[in-house]
């Protein structure tokens, strides 16, 4: 038996109908997660390419936390894998066009190995938003198209009471010119069937994109506020990123006086609210200046509503001189506006 974990040496093998072409060095471009390896694969029947996420249990055991048995850990990883697989199947079943769904899955275990390698195969993209953005000189029309795409994807998840919880530029994949889809449901959870990794209410994916309240350990007891609100904040973060090259949370944190920054402030979220609000207004004011005048008013309204630092006030400002039959955290209105802005912008440019 080799010292190198099986999941790390799949290159050249053919698993089911997939030929493992090339191992990917872990980059922001894949969605392989902490305990997995990524490969480029090709279907031997129809020739299409895909991305394989192979669970690396061996590696996971090496970083086993003290106090946790390997059996428990193995069970936990398997549960997580199965949960993600089920979510992906549901997305496929519900025809979520803007979610990167699995095109294959299975478990590989040659007779000589004890530990199996469960895997998922995804459609392959031209790159993620972060990578594509650094390569191209992008127009506003392109950006609006990308915003529209990932918002639709998020809305498709929300309609099924699934929340993504790790919406960030590297999880927005670009297909073709500007078809954007949301990927990596590794941190996602469902309202009626909680992800096994969601044993803590404050769990989220990458904290450097997380909604501000979680950084102060505040989480609403209401699922919609806590979970849908978190997705909305992160979505606002991506729109900001497309305009300013910086994420909303980074800009917001930079406008907070040092003493109130999450890593130094010891009070509660309630205590820090007036200062976060001040930083929020300042951030919105700064972003506003960077938006094309033709769509400034509408787009800044969207960003400000999605990124409102108080989760209870995030989303549609229902009851504040604004009437709609839509729920507070619905993305439909934003999608319509972006669609309209996109057309409006095209018209002003022609």
């Amino acid at each position, binding site marked *: 038996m080799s010292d190198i974990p099986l999941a790390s040496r799949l290159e050249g093998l053919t698993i089911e109908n997939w030929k493992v072409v090339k191992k990917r060095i872990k980059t922001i471009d894949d969605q392989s997660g902490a305990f997995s390896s990524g490969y480029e694969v090709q279907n031997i029947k129809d020739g299409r390419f895909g991305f394989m996420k192979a669970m690396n249990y061996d590696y996971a055991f090496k970083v086993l936390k003290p106090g946790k048995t390997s059996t428990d850990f193995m069970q936990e990883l398997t549960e997580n894998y199965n949960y993600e697989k089920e979510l992906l199947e549901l997305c496929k079943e519900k025809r979520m066009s803007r979610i990167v769904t699995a095109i294959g899955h299975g478990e590989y275990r040659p007779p000589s190995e004890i530990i199996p390698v469960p895997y998922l195969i995804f459609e392959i993209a031209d790159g993620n938003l972060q990578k594509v953005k*650094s390569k191209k000189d992008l127009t506003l029309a392109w950006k609006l198209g990308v915003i529209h795409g990932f918002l639709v994807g998020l809305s498709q998840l929300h309609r099924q009471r699934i929340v993504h919880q790790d919406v960030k530029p590297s999880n927005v994949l670009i297909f073709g010119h500007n078809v954007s889809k949301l990927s990596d449901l590794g941190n996602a959870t469902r309202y009626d069937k909680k992800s096994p990794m969601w044993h803590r209410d404050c769990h989220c994916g990458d904290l450097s994109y997380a909604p501000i309240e979680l950084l102060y350990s505040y989480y609403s007891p209401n699922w919609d506020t806590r979970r849908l609100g978190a997705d909305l904040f992160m979505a606002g973060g991506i729109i900001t990123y497309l305009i300013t090259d*910086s994420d909303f949370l980074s800009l917001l944190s930079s406008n907070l006086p040092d003493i109130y920054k999450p*890593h130094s402030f010891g009070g509660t979220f309630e205590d820090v609210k007036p*200062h976060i609000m001040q930083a929020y207004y300042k951030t919105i004011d700064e972003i506003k200046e960077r938006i094309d005048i033709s769509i400034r008013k509408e787009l800044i309204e969207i960003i400000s509503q999605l990124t409102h630092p108080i989760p209870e006030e995030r989303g549609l400002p229902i009851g504040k001189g604004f009437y709609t039959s839509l729920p507070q955290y619905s993305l439909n209105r934003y999608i319509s506006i972006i669609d309209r802005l996109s057309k409006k912008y095209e018209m002003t440019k022609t």
Partner: protein
Amino acid sequence: MNNLQEDSRKHVIPKWLEYRKAVGTRELVVPRKIHFEINAATKESIKTDIEEFKENPTSEMACRLMGAGIIIGDNQLSHNMAAFIADRGGVDTLSIKLADKILNVAHNAEPVSEVDVRISKLRKWLLEYHRSAIGWIELSRAFTIKGQKEKAKRAAMIALQLAPHDRYIVRCGVRLFLHLNDFDRAFYYVNKASKDHFDPWIKATEINVAIISERKLPDMKKFLPRNISHNELFDFSELFESSGSLELDAGNDKKARKQFRLAWENPSDNVITHAEWVLRNRLPGMRESTVLKFDRSLEATTWIKYYELKIDEAMSTAREWELEEPYSTYPFNVGSCIASNAGRPELGVDIAKRGLLINPDDVGLYNNLCYALLRAGDVPGASKHISRLKIKDGTDRDIFHQATLGLYAFRKNNVDEGRQFYLEAITRFKQKGKPDLQASALLNYALAEVEARTPEYPEIANRSLKVTEGLKDPNVILLRKQLQDKLNPLQQI
């Protein structure tokens, strides 16, 4: 001239610094007790991105990592990435601005604007962001500096409604209401803030407002912890200082000293200011054994320099103090007094006028202005304001007015009337058992006699100098010097 050792300074009152300065002080700090934890997903994501950046350094990735550094508190990471962005550019202006801010490039600093410009900017800001509590309290401060009290009050009340428990907002609001002598309102807001949760800074303010407004005081023991670490002492220093002050007023000097020692172990800037007042006015015996960084307080430093008779330094510190607390009459009062006593009445006039721009109804400042104008020989100038000096109810203020009216009468050649005012003031200070003030009044009287060249001036002046010999009060020392300087050439003739 006013009494500089005002009793109103015996309370521990928060300063109202502008927001950007206030957040730089330790007063608003709420330190983390538990280390800020970053989850595995974040660590992994940042690690991957750093590796990617090393392979292929781009400004876009630098932006991402600069932001991550800010959020997780990795200053080195955000600084390195900011330097890369500043060097390479190629990203949006806002990200470049952020990089500059991290690198402390000066053009990001908001310029200090005139108060009118500031008001206009704040109004515009609040029109858009009307729920900004910080914006409202800043507007209130700007209105206070302009002397627009009602507007200041309204703005502060909105701020307090938006953030009724915030330490900064509550203490600023209370400072305003005390400034406006609206003690009930000050107590209402501070009491409301401290009702639901205990904050030693707000509690200390509440106790001082209760003392000022003569309300029933809560049992201090309930709020003063017995075993307290050096770091925690900072947060409780105002409470211990207030407790010491109460004990002192109750005549329990021993207990007061104990509480003061605790407060002075790790004091806030306000405690330092107050400690200087205590050491100067109430417990001078403790000065030798007390080690405090008085330079942390502009008010304390002004006094220390003045007592050391370093007049230029005292004046320049008083000017800084004016700028730090422009809403307060006190730095203007002290500055104009020092200037006039040091024989620079023209400067005293300027300072008093600056103070009156902000506090146009402050009678104390009018008294200083009249005194400085009269000392500078501008009798018509003093005539414009002298009617504001009223003698009403026998308070200390009345006695100062009396003395200034005495000088005015002398300058108008009504020597008998002037003498009458002065002698009455001197007698009343004597009756009140205030030897330093009595001496100051006596020396001022002698100066007036000398300047009027009355037949009695040699005797009065020499007697005044003799009687006041050995007194350590800087007002007395400076007035004696002025008198001596006026007398010497006359005696040589």
